[in-house]
């Protein structure tokens, strides 16, 4: 909490990710400088000079004739130093990977979501790798252990996004750097990686520049839609802006399909509602629903069947409800006839005045 408050102070309470990252690394560097100033061991660890890897000027050599074993106090001192070193390395790796996990979780597309297992792996992996490297401490063995770790992690981990592999590799790199007592390299790799990643995410780096973005494609129509409706904003406009090309194209196709079903502008639309049903027994539920719709609506049309494995499938109908029928009666009838076969049923009716203008229409939820 104190750390969070300190970052809040440094960022003046800003939630801007880059500002918060800069603040985090600033605090981290300040703490490291502080520790390096106070503890020479930490200073050596930051620069890739392990306590046993580099001989320092002024270092006292052990008297080989004084006795077979060095004094107990000296052994204890070395063990304490080793323990402090190990804790410092592992904590260092952890602190350097924390912002990476935040960036990872923040920059994943909203519809994909981040993989919690990957996020946790990014935390655990460098700690384990650092431990392995500290034990190995030999260049040839380092090469072999690197190959082993990479192979084990890569081929035993199923990743949805190929970019997730990069996070895992970064995790290994930070772990290795910490393990060979080079936290400076680990810190720089971590910081640069995070900032580059945020920039690529912010500016959608790598998109096909010949194709318009979803924001470019839909921004103006959405504004127009909002203005025609007389409202100051469109509720899900920000969400629409975050769509990628594939999602935008899917949505556009759906818009066009609905528009063709609604009929030409100025005329009374053929349908005025959307019925959404969730079911695990698609065929049986479909027969029951269509029987009810045939009986209780003026006209209906099956718009989309969303088949899912391992979770309920969705049925979407465009309906024109009779004037003398209350929409809830249709839902009640479907639930009554469907029983357990219908998990959920919703009927959304468009307001008549808005439907006439073709300005807004309740959309089925995207698959």
């Amino acid at each position: 909490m104190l750390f969070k408050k300190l970052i809040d102070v440094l960022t003046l309470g800003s939630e801007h990710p880059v500002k918060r990252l800069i603040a985090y690394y600033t605090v981290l560097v300040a703490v490291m400088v502080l520790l390096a100033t106070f503890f020479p061991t930490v200073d050596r660890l930051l620069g890739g000079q392990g306590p046993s890897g580099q001989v320092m000027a002024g270092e006292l050599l052990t008297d080989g004739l004084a006795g077979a074993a060095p004094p107990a106090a000296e052994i204890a001192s070395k063990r304490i130093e080793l323990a402090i070193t190990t804790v410092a390395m592992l904590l260092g790796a952890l602190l350097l990977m924390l912002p990476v996990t935040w960036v990872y979780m923040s920059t994943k597309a909203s519809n994909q979501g981040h993989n919690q297992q990957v996020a946790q792996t990014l935390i655990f992996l460098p700690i384990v790798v650092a431990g392995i490297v500290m034990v190995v401490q030999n260049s040839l063995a380092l090469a072999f252990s690197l190959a082993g770790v990479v192979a084990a992690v890569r081929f035993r981990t199923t990743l949805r996004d190929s970019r997730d592999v990069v996070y895992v590799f970064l995790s290994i790199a930070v772990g290795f750097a910490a393990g060979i007592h080079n936290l400076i390299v680990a810190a720089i790799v971590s910081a640069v990686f995070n900032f580059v990643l945020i920039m690529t995410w912010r500016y959608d780096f790598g998109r096909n520049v010949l194709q318009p973005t979803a924001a470019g494609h839909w921004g103006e129509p959405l504004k127009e839609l909002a203005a025609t409706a007389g409202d100051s904003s469109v509720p899900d406009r920000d969400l629409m802006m975050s769509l990628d090309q594939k999602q935008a194209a899917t949505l556009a196709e759906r818009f066009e399909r609905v528009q063709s079903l609604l009929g030409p502008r100025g005329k009374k639309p053929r349908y005025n509602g959307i019925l959404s049903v969730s079911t695990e027994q698609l065929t049986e539920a479909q027969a029951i629903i269509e029987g009810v719709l045939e009986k209780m609506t003026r006209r209906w049309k099956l718009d989309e069947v969303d088949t899912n494995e391992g979770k309920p499938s969705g049925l979407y109908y465009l309906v024109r409800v009779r004037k003398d029928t209350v929409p809830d009666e249709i839902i009640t009838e479907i639930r009554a006839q469907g029983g357990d076969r219908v998990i959920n049923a919703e009927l959304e009716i468009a307001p008549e005045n808005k439907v006439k203008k073709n300005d807004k229409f309740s959309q089925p939820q995207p698959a």
Partner: protein
Amino acid sequence: MRTTALTPLLLLALLAGCRDGRMASAVERDSTTLRQREATLASRLGDAPPDSTTPIARWVLPPGLSEISGLALTKDMRLLAHNDEAAVIYEIDYRRGTVVKQFMLGDTPIRDDFEAIAVAGERLFMTTSKGRVFEFREGPDGAQVPFTVHDSGLAKECEFEGLAFDSTDNALLLACKRILTKGLKDFVILYKWSLAGGLKTPPEEIRIPVADVIQGTRFKRITPSDITVDPHTGHYLILASQERSLLTVGKDGSVIGLRSLPPGHPMAEGIAATPDGLLIVSDEATKTPATITLYRVR
């Protein structure tokens, strides 16, 4: 908010102040130890008979010096040592058992198979196993000193392991560990490379018949691991690691004597002799840590 922001700075200032106090106490503690060690060594020197095979001091080197290779003494009797993989030179206070300083060749230490070091006045030399001799000057602690490289052109003739400076001839002495030329297998080969010629002239070869060396012993060959010049006699002292022996030869290559090293030298890689009668031998780490051992020979 200002107070909160200032807190880390105040802490930093406080800790920086404390640091001096902590360092001062460490220096005080170390200096007491060093005084004790100096007194102990003086006492052992007083008790030890000349030509003793009992070490008067043995310093266990830290893991960073586990591959210690060559030893050399400066004009003012300071001991220089180096590892065999990187061009980092350490000054070791052999009387009190402490590392005085270290400096390296180049911005990042040059990595090669460094085998030995020699001091010729202000000039320092290190040789690789392929006979490439790096020349440089001594630097202060932590310095990165410039260097030049002289190629002996003998990489195909032999694999070098020892280097020394013969001040009477103003020449570098290179000891060959493994002879690659077929016809010379029956000799221990030394090369004398004159500094007067700026290391431009070809090195002069000194042949020591192996038969003369090994007669009366169980050895079949002698494999030098370092060489130094005895400051009293001017003889060449050749350390043979595998045979755990010390060979003494004259300037012309005549064999003067071969004696075994005392126990405790699993891999003797470096040798130096001081004018006040100390012989210093360095051992690479094997199952035991690397050490430097001092003997009183005069």
